Every structure is written in structure tokens, then in C-alpha cells.
């Protein structure tokens, strides 16, 4: 019987008892639950990673203007800017996360990881990590499997959907997946991987989902960049054995609790936060369909 990804504590105990790396129970889970073969699973994950890399490259090369006009080739501007705030690597990281997410906003092909709204975070972080540390694809595939295990636990104990848990559930979960995957790829211990996840969640808690005009554009695109940065800062902290203090399972629990008590206007309804600002409302008026037949309250269609 495979491990069912109920808690991080259980995942760690399973790995220690069987003396297997973190990604192994994830493979076993998929074999058991979905009847797939290990080789096919690794291949599928590698295919997904290639789509992620393509999205990064497409976003930095092709025209990325969204239908609403709110997204307009930001990633390229960041990539090509002459002044680096921190380092050229950081500049690349940020532009790559933006690029993949811009591709999503502009009807290009992405991997929803875990959701379409957070589809820039794993591509941006893992592309950059692979480049800096010259990692083989197999290592990234194992990192992504660890990321999938992280998401399975968050899905069970909190949520991955903005409509249920706010932005923390989407970009927060993606950042936690990315951070854990990165620490794993760099040879971190189970303890360090889970610390990275916990610290990332601590940094992303409370983020609301308040998309302007209800579209997956503002602030989603820039939040993919900031989440990629947080994934990196958390990985750096965790690798140095700095303790998250609050165990990762309790961090996830906090995320679920905050999501549950978040008001509906902050859950993808475009009724609060940035969506409700004066400019947000003006944009909504401009981009949303106005030619709409509103049925009276008592009348039924047909």
C-alpha cells in the first residue's frame, strides 16, 4: 500500500522507515492510485517540464499582449533591462516567472502547476535553478515529483483553489512546491525540504485573490514573480538549517484556517481588493461584455 499524502510528518516517517528518497512514495502513489507505470510517470513529468521551459522561452520571445491590454510584454522588458537590482540571475528568475505566466494570460500553452493562475512559478524557479547549478533533467523531474507530493498534502489539508482559499492557495502553494523542489534538487535533507515548504507558506499566508475585472492578469502575473522570489529566499534560509519553528503541517493548517475565514469578496469574485479600486472598476467597465441580457429575478430561461 502506497503512502496517501495525508501529512508531511507521515511522508517523512514513510521515507525514513523504507529508506527511500522523497520522490519515491510519490511515484508509488501514482502507480497505485492511477495504475500507471513508473517510467510513464517520469516521462509525463519530463514532458510537463518541457512545456514549462517552452512557456518561459515563448514569453521572452513572442508578443505577449493580452486581450484586455493589461498584460503587455512585461517579461521581455525586465529580461532586457540594463540595470540589475541584485544580480543578473535574479533578474532572469523574475523575468522567467513573468514570461511563463504572461503566456498563460495570452492564451498560450502552459502547465497548470498546481493551477493556471500560478503557472509561472515552477517554470521560473526550476529553469533558473537548472541553469545556475547545471542540473540534469532527471533531477528536475524528481524535484517536480516532490513538488507534486507537497501539493497533494496542501490540497487535502487546505486548498489549491483561489475561489476556496484565496491567492495563498494558488501562488502560495506553487511557491511552496517550488521551494521544496529546489532544496531537494540541491541535495537538501527531508528536514530542510519541509522547512523550505513551511517557511514559504509562512511568507505567503493571507494573500487574497482579487483579480481586476476577474481576469487572470492583474495582480496574478506580478505575484508569480514575487512568489518565485519568495521560493528562493525560503530555500536559501532552509538550506542553512534555519528552523521554521512552526512545523510544516501546522503551517498548512493555518493556511486552511485563514482560507476558510476569508470573506468571499477576496476569493476570485472580483468584488474586493484591487478589483474594487476605482481604476480596477474602470478597467472592468472597459473590458467586460456590456451587451448582456439580464433576466428578471423570477423569470427562468427557456
Amino acid at each position, binding site marked *: 500500500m502506497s503512502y*496517501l499524502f495525508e501529512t508531511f510528518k507521515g511522508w517523512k516517517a514513510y521515507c525514513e522507515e523504507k529508506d527511500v528518497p522523497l520522490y519515491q512514495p*510519490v511515484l508509488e*502513489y*501514482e502507480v497505485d*492510485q*492511477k495504475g500507471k507505470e513508473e517510467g510513464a*510517470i517520469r516521462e*509525463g*513529468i519530463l*514532458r*510537463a517540464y518541457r*512545456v514549462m521551459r517552452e512557456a518561459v522561452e515563448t514569453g521572452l520571445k513572442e508578443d505577449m499582449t*493580452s*486581450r*484586455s491590454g493589461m498584460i503587455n510584454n512585461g517579461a521581455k522588458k525586465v529580461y532586457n533591462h540594463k540595470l540589475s537590482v541584485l544580480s543578473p540571475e535574479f533578474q532572469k528568475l523574475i523575468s522567467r516567472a513573468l514570461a511563463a505566466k504572461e*503566456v*498563460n*494570460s*495570452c*492564451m*498560450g*500553452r*502552459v*502547465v*497548470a*502547476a*498546481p*493551477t*493556471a*493562475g500560478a*503557472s509561472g512559478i*515552477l517554470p521560473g524557479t526550476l529553469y533558473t535553478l537548472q541553469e545556475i547549478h547545471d542540473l540534469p533533467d532527471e533531477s528536475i523531474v524528481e524535484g*517536480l*515529483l516532490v*513538488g*507534486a507530493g507537497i*501539493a*497533494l498534502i496542501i*490540497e487535502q489539508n487546505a486548498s489549491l*483553489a483561489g*475561489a476556496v482559499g484565496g491567492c495563498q492557495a494558488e501562488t502560495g502553494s506553487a511557491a511552496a*512546491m517550488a521551494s521544496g523542489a529546489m532544496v531537494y534538487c540541491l541535495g537538501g535533507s527531508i528536514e530542510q525540504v519541509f522547512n523550505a515548504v513551511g517557511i514559504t507558506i509562512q511568507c505567503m499566508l493571507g494573500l487574497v485573490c482579487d483579480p481586476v*475585472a*476577474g*481576469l*487572470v*492578469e492583474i495582480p496574478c502575473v506580478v505575484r508569480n514573480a514575487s512568489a518565485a522570489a519568495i521560493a528562493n529566499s525560503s530555500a536559501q534560509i532552509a538550506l542553512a538549517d534555519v528552523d521554521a519553528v512552526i512545523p510544516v503541517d501546522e503551517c498548512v493548517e493555518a493556511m486552511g484556517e485563514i482560507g476558510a475565514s476569508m470573506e468571499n469578496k477576496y476569493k476570485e469574485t472580483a468584488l474586493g481588493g484591487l478589483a474594487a479600486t476605482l481604476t480596477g472598476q474602470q478597467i472592468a467597465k472597459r*473590458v*467586460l*461584455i456590456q*451587451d*448582456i*441580457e*439580464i*433576466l*428578471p*429575478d423570477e423569470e*427562468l*430561461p427557456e
Partner: protein
Amino acid sequence: MAGKSSVFDMIGPVMIGPSSSHTAGVVRIGRAAIRVLGGIPDEALITFYNSFARTYEGHGSDRAIIGGLLDMKTDDDRIKTAFEVAKEKGLQYSFKSIGNASVYHPNTVKVNLTKGTKKVEVIGESLGGGLINISKVDGFNADFSAQAHTLIIKAQDVSGAIAFISSVIAQEKTNIATMSVSRKGKNDIACHVIEMDSGLQPITIEYLKSLPWIKELIYIPDIDL
């Protein structure tokens, strides 16, 4: 969702953006609808309801539904240019928006399709994460996910029909996942919607079609294949 999530729900699906519910799910509703029609339509009237009504342009749901009606998959990058492809293939389409339709799911789209003399009306709901429910076919309750293999049979409301159809399916060792029957009135036409875990052989489908009391049979294999 039935059963446990897959690793490929966490790292995936691979899809055309921006939204799994407003784009990918809508493509799948289109793919299901043309299988009900039995081919690519000449004409399509698309009605977006409720949450879809105002945001369908911004989320690309309009291109997504046309892409689906042209049999594109959810990761097909031609979805972005679906209107141009529709022109090439001679598919005429128009859109309508209706808000406050309280009887419908927040993310509902209705398609009225015409191909030659054949017309169908399909209503689909996008449930999130790309999952869908086809709630109605030609006014009959349908409620299928289009994930499994689906059989829609319009038949005379005769006694023993359900037992007969299910025994034919059982002979193929195919497991029925869900089954529903609705009718417009007593002794009128009844609509059977059966979701199966695996597909049926063409000969079984032809046999069922040949029965005099079966008026119409639509077989929809897994729409993502």
C-alpha cells in the same frame, strides 16, 4: 472529483490559458457537443450565462468554445486563432450573453448547433480545474462528465428498456459508472444516459441502433482521447 487526485493534477494539466474553468473546461464542452451532433457544425449559436456572460472575451472562452467545436484539444495552440480556423472551415457562429439565469450553474454555456438538417442543443457547466458536466441534451437531463465513455439513447418509453440495454452492455464486460433516464412524459420518448468505464465495440453499437424501439443512439468515447 472521483477518487484521489493524480500527480498530473498537481503538475498539470498542460493547457491553453488563461483559466482552467473559463478556457480548458469550455473547450471540453465544445468537444462533447460536437460528438452529440456527430461532426463539426456549419452553424453555432453560443450563449454564455451568469459568470461567463461578462468575462467570456477576457478569458478567451469565446475562442475556447469555437476551438472545442472544431475538435481542438485543451492544449492545442490553435485555440488562440480559433476564429480564423472557423472561417477556413466554414463554421458560422454568433455569441449571446445572459445574466442572472438563476437556474443555471454560475459557469454555464449553451450551444445550439446545426449541421445540414441536424440540430442539437447542448448545455454544459464548467466545474473548475477543466472538469465539466453536460447537464442537458435537447432538453433532456443528461448530467455526464464526458470523462468516461458515454452512451445517449433516445428510445420509446417501453417497459424493460433499462434492463435490456444494461444487459447488452454487460455482455461486453463493460462496467456502468452512472446511468440516468429521463422522459418528457409517460409513453413518450425516454432519454438514457449511461457512463461506462470502458468503450463499446462498433458491433454492439450497431446492434442497439438497429432495434426498432431505439430512435437515436449517440456514442461518445472519452472526449480527451
